[in-house]
């Protein structure tokens, strides 16, 4: 008496579910939706998904329908009736074995076909990007152009990109839901995932996530993928290949740029500094002069980065600042002083590289050569602005759980060592560092 009346109430729930799904498939407010693929791989998967959904819905409706039907139709009305004591039915058993088998065949065949299609070696002219998962950030290396960046990649629309996945510590997994499925980055393994971003989509930013649990800050191991036109991409590459420059634009002698770009190449783990496509050719053996001070050419400064104003809302992190870190936001910093601190008292160079600066070649942390042009810091956790940068430098360990970067602010509490830093950077020094980093565009 209870069952069937209430079961009816679930009809609206089912309808709501279907509606919500339809909504999910199109709405703009789902920035990480897998239902709006923007690549060939994404669409192959979506095709399978639709087929799975189709048969899944049929099975669901039939089974739940039959269940509700029998429960209502054969409900007990009187305690005295004895139903026929049937024991089974051979034809029925065979039928409900064969029908699911047939359905599965319709699923299995395209599945296997898609597996072999999507796991074939990537086409020859693909853009190779070496991806290294670290606890808890991403290192991206463009071997073709010989530069390294972190937590943010640009890929040209219409060209196949072949991501070669490695891991430096534990297992991570690379996922940009709008572009493709996941692939794990596993130590001692090399994995591939490749796809071609649609050439007709907008220049925009996609969110990416680490999807294999990798320890404390697995939840904050994001990255951004910027899909750009081939021209924008070429322009962006020029900038990335240049050494870290800061300060007001000056007109340095051409040789400075050339040797600087060789220095940049030297930090990319490659002995042969073969001339990169978009950069000025430089002799590999050119002596590397330390590049201090403002060095950027106007041409380089004009090269492409996605303007912050064009970054969609969903790609801008909203992680609140921890209250525990106090910083005097009114301080203004001096980039040149910041640079000295970077390779001096700040000891930042122990872990970070800034190409062009031979003293800054650390590889434990992200490459900071053009950090000022990135949207976020700390693997997508915080917005890349002064407020966040300064607190990050002051006490990264409060900003992000388990992080390897030490607490550097003077008198700051380090939650990992459970100790207060006796020495360290003053707020003014941090402001200088921030000014330097922000200038590294």
């Amino acid at each position, binding site marked *: 008496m209870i069952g069937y009346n209430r079961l009816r109430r679930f009809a609206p729930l089912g309808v709501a579910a279907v509606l919500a799904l339809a909504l999910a498939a199109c709405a703009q407010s789902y920035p990480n939706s897998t239902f709006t693929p923007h690549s060939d791989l994404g669409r192959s998967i979506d095709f399978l998904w639709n087929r799975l959904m189709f048969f899944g819905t049929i099975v669901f409706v039939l089974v739940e329908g039959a269940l509700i039907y029998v429960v209502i139709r054969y409900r007990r009305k009187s305690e005295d009736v*004895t139903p026929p004591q049937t*024991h089974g039915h051979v034809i029925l058993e065979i039928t409900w074995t064969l029908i*699911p088998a047939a359905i599965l065949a319709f699923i*299995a065949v395209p*599945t296997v076909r898609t*597996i072999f299609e999507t796991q074939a070696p990537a086409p020859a002219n693909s853009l190779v990007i070496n991806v290294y998962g670290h606890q808890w950030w991403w290192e991206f290396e463009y071997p073709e152009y010989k530069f390294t960046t972190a937590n943010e990649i640009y890929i040209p629309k219409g060209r196949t990109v072949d991501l070669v996945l490695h891991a430096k*510590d534990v297992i991570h997994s690379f996922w940009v839901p709008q572009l493709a*499925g996941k692939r794990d980055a596993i130590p001692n393994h090399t994995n591939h995932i490749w796809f071609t971003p649609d050439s007709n989509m907008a220049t925009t930013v996609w969110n990416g996530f680490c999807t294999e649990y990798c320890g404390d800050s697995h939840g904050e191991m994001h990255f951004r993928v910027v899909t750009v036109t081939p021209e924008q991409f070429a322009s962006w590459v020029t900038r990335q290949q240049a050494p870290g420059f800061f300060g007001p634009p000056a007109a340095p002698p051409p040789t400075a740029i050339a040797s600087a770009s060789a220095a940049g190449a030297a930090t990319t783990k490659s002995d042969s500094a073969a001339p990169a496509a978009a950069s000025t050719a430089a002799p590999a053996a050119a002596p590397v002069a330390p590049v201090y001070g403002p060095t950027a050419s106007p041409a380089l400064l004009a090269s492409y980065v996605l303007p912050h104003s064009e970054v969609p*809302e*969903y790609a801008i992190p909203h992680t609140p600042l921890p209250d525990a870190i106090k910083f005097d936001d009114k301080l203004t910093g001096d980039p040149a002083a910041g640079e000295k601190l970077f390779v001096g008292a700040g000891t930042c160079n122990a872990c970070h590289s800034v190409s062009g600066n031979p003293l800054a070649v650390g590889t434990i942390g992200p490459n900071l050569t053009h950090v000022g042009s990135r949207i976020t810091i700390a693997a997508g956790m915080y917005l890349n602005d002064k407020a966040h940068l300064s607190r990050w430098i002051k006490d990264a360990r409060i900003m992000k759980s388990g992080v390897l970067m030490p607490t550097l602010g003077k008198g700051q509490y380090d939650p990992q060592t459970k100790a207060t830093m006796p020495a360290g950077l003053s707020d003014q020094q941090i402001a200088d560092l921030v000014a330097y980093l922000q200038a590294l565009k």
Partner: protein
Amino acid sequence: MATSVIETIPAHLKPFVPSPIPTTVQTYGTSIWGWITTTDHKKIGALYLFTALFFFLVGGIEAEIIRAQLGGPNRHLVSAETYNQIFTMHGTTMIFLAIMPLSAAFFNFIIPLQIGARDVAFPRLNAFSYWIYLLGGLFISIPILFGHGPNAGWFGYAPLTTKAYSPGINIDFWVVGLQILGISSLAAGFNFITTIINLRAPGMSLMRMPVFTWMAFIVQFMIVLAFPVVTIALFFLLLDRFFGTQFYEVASGGDPLLWQHLFWIFGHPEVYILVLPAFGLVSEVLPTFSKKPLFGYPVMIYSGILIGFLGFGVWAHHMFAVGMGPIADSVFGVTTMLIAIPTGVKIFNWIGTIAQGQFKATSASLFAIGLVSLFTIGGISGVMHSSPPADLQQTDSYFVVAHFHYVLFGGSIMGIFAGIYFYFPKMFGRMMDEKLGKTHFWLTFIAMNLTFFPMHFSGMLGMPRRIYTYDAGQGWEAFNQTSTWGAYLLFVASLFFMYNFFKSLRSGRPAGPNPWGAGTLEWTIPSPPPPYNFAVLPNVTSRYPLWEGKQADIESARINQQSGRSAEELGIVLPYNTIKPFLAAFFLVLMFSGLIVGHWLIFASAAAMVLAFYGWLTSPLEPEHH
């Protein structure tokens, strides 16, 4: 009201005169010593039930914290470190400390009764299994209270679990704790295999065995075949962490996929270990409340066997993103799909059981319907995972979380609740309150869907699992909020259950031997059963001895139902109570904890454990008989 249930059984379904419903109900006695030393499978079953419900509550509270944290974006109710411990322990607790032992409670209580035995084959080993479970459970659960809980997820992928990346003692507790718990399951596995093969009453042929016992039988084989593999995988990790071996050391050339394969060779059979007992319970409940034998009994058995067997050939479907290559992906994808066929057959046969029957909605049967409807949803999302390219968008997202809660909560837990409402009268001699029970069901059913259905969306809309928080503006807020409110409602639903459970234990209406008019052997004896279960071993001539009206069945039922006499009066020899299994288990757990505490403890407790075993093996099980 008090008489209604049994009076309403139609004439042919009560082929013998039922004994009057007792006004007082036997209890198991309250002496603590009596519980610690017991070897009675029914008391051990009850211990399993209470302990597992306790751990279920613990796992549930952990789930509530998870949901509270994820109820909105950028929440910091708990830190990332704490969150990671909580979700790890939530998964570990639910799987190893709640569902498996809840199933074990039924194995213990029901199997001997269903096959017409006086106890399990090795009663002391049985007690040993329980004590290991309890102590191992505490061992693995307590550290989280001190902020040192295991924190690498319930499948603890290497190399994250190695000393290099988890230098703390958190993972030590996990490795050692699971190692201990494995011993409990293995010991119970051998025990039940032997029991079911060898202690069936005369005439209880395999094809007359109740379906619950059949599913339990299959599960025991899966346990004894699956657990050794994880034992070895854990043993490697234990050696790595405590003795400096290299199994999972990346720098030495170790392959992280070794752990994954070994774990999932265990892990996938494990999920059927979790659900087949629930399938068995439902296969007892639905016929009873439809007044019809189970539809397609032999097919149900064969499909169970097939599921068990196929279950060993699909493990790598948890690894579609690791890059195994197209051949392996295809093979494991297709074998995984095949499992849907025998499982579907089960679903259809349950529907066939209700069809043409006389379905009565009770708490037990509603939960059984809950299983059929919700497990189907989980199964369908499982099939969606089984297509490797499609799974690349689903794996490690909340879509998977939705899948496995539909099969685990919608399957295992729903089935176990059906089992509890169904067998409570048999276990404790008292009825549970039906009104509260039905309220519990409807709240649970609604809240369960409210909690887990939105996860399908959040997952496909890009939300990874195991993240302690997420940013605003990702399109996930509404779904998470719904999930969280659903989880709160689930908790409220559980309060109804708890109240009902404890109230009924104390003052439920006396049940009598067969309150539901069920057909199998366990209902032919008093509730709760006397220590010896059957005054005479029944002579079984049919699948539903109480329904099919065979003379021999009726006769044994008539005798067994009415025995109010003690074992001595009947001259039945029962095993002694003994503390030795407890001691052996205690020292075994102590020995393992020596790995963390200090190696001297290993040797000291190993010696004590050997003594306990020696005492156990050299003392007789039961009084000498002439």
